[in-house]
């Protein structure tokens, strides 16, 4: 948050401003490739490649694993932007990736912004993909894809939250496109495929009971590991009820899935943060709490 707020907010003034005042801008392109490996019980960075507006930062960690922060210095995502992120956890590595703040996706006059994430988890490694929420403004158009490949004995946790306009600021996502395509391969098999697609009149869609029943914040966690199914009861015990956030878990075929659905991102985070703390058994990346 600090990075963007101090360096880029002035150069990027149209947080919700009308389209007519939006200056013509260069499409942003950003690319990050990062890999780390386990060495003598700790995780060391092996390769960092950055281009365009994407950066990876590695603050001094406290635990045995490596926490890395993915920073988009363009200060958000606008129409036609293209970002590619590739993370590799080599044998024995333990990596957590987070982002410094909510990723804002601004209105588009047509072109779809694209974000492609590729995660590769080798034998005995652990990778936690924990970006903070994606915040969509009215008429935002984003197509995101996440492709993960993991070995049978590796551990992957993927968490993503999305907010269709902020309730506290009375923002309304009347129209737009959000497509979130996940494909997870374990060993040689595709084990999880999901494409969440809200296309067109998003606020109206969200009112439908099958879609959101008026909710505007969704989150999904998928955990793939040898113990995933055995952790179902533990996950259920730690999903708070009565907090205003609708949440539940299911487990099958080596997967554990948890979904959260709430009227606002604040209510959603209030349910998600304690759950992630207990489920992961270690502190959240510091950026989550600042």
């Amino acid at each position, binding site marked *: 948050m600090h990075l963007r707020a101090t360096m880029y907010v002035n150069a990027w003034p149209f947080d919700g401003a009308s389209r007519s005042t939006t200056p013509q801008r260069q499409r942003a392109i950003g690319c990050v490739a990062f890999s780390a490996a386990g060495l003598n019980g700790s995780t060391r960075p092996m390769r960092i490649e950055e281009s365009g507006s994407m950066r990876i930062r590695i603050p001094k960690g406290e635990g045995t694993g490596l926490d890395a922060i993915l920073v988009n210095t363009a200060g958000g995502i606008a129409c036609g932007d293209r970002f590619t992120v590739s993370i590799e956890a080599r044998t024995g590595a333990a990596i957590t990736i987070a982002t410094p703040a909510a990723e804002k996706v601004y209105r588009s006059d047509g072109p779809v912004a694209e974000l492609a994430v590729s995660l590769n988890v080798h034998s005995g490694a652990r990778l936690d993909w924990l970006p903070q929420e994606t915040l969509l403004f009215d008429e935002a158009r984003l197509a995101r894809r996440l492709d993960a490949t993991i070995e049978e004995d590796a551990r992957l946790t993927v968490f993503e939250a999305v907010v269709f306009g902020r309730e506290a600021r009375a923002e309304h996502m009347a129209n737009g496109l959000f497509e979130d395509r996940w494909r997870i391969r374990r060993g040689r098999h*595709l084990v999880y495929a999901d*494409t*969440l697609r809200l*296309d067109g009149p998003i606020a109206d869609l969200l009112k439908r*009971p*099958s879609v959101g029943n008026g909710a505007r914040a*969704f989150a999904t966690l998928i955990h793939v590991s040898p113990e995933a199914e055995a952790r179902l009861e533990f996950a259920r015990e730690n999903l708070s009820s009565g907090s205003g956030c609708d949440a*539940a878990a299911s487990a*099958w075929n080596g997967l554990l*899935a948890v979904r959260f659905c709430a009227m606002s991102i604040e209510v959603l985070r209030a349910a998600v943060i304690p759950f992630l703390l207990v489920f992961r058994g270690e502190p959240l990346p510091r950026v989550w709490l600042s």
Partner: protein
Amino acid sequence: MDDCMPLQMIDRDPMAILPLFVWLSPSYPVGCYAYSHTLEWAVEAGDVTSEETLVAWLTDLLTLGLGCNDAILLCHAYRAVRAGDAVALEEVNELALALSPSAELYLETSQQGRSFLDATLAAWPSPLLMSLEGDVAFPVAIGMAAAAHEVPLATTAAAYLFGLVQTLISAAIRLAPIGQTAGIRVCASLSVTVQNVSRQALDLSLDDIGGATFRADLGSFHHENQYTRLFRS
């Protein structure tokens, strides 16, 4: 991808659709009556309470997720069998199974798919009907059988969706204050939607698969812990 000649010939024979009346009948041994595809939880949660809310719920399932996706998968399985492409068929089936959003919805499609394929291999064998190993998704199994027995694709896709609608309506009649006559009315009123969705699916790719029914899928997670249950999903 299709061989034009045989498919045109298939479409010209009005009797070619007869097997669908047997395969999609509730008496075919797949156990469709055991599944509600999240409807049991939707009734418990108060989302489906009447004829109107049932129509809205089923319309969403058909147009915003399950129905459209299953029709696309069925079409691609059908074409893979017509082309004799075992690799493409395996890929469609793997994707169809992986698309299940929960344990119960995985069971729903894989148990019915396996049962359908086993029954059809035993009773309606065909040299074109490949026997997939392991789990089989239900729409994939229907697409395979229809292709092997030269049942026209467009009719198969629409009939499959109608079968799905009927399964869910009969579940709704047991779960919600909705009578037999209202149930039939809902079924008739959804026939246009069924036709539109199945027609569109003919031209869609596997990349077009997707859905918006986030909360219905979450409901299937809740259903696993529902106190009294008549259905397996």
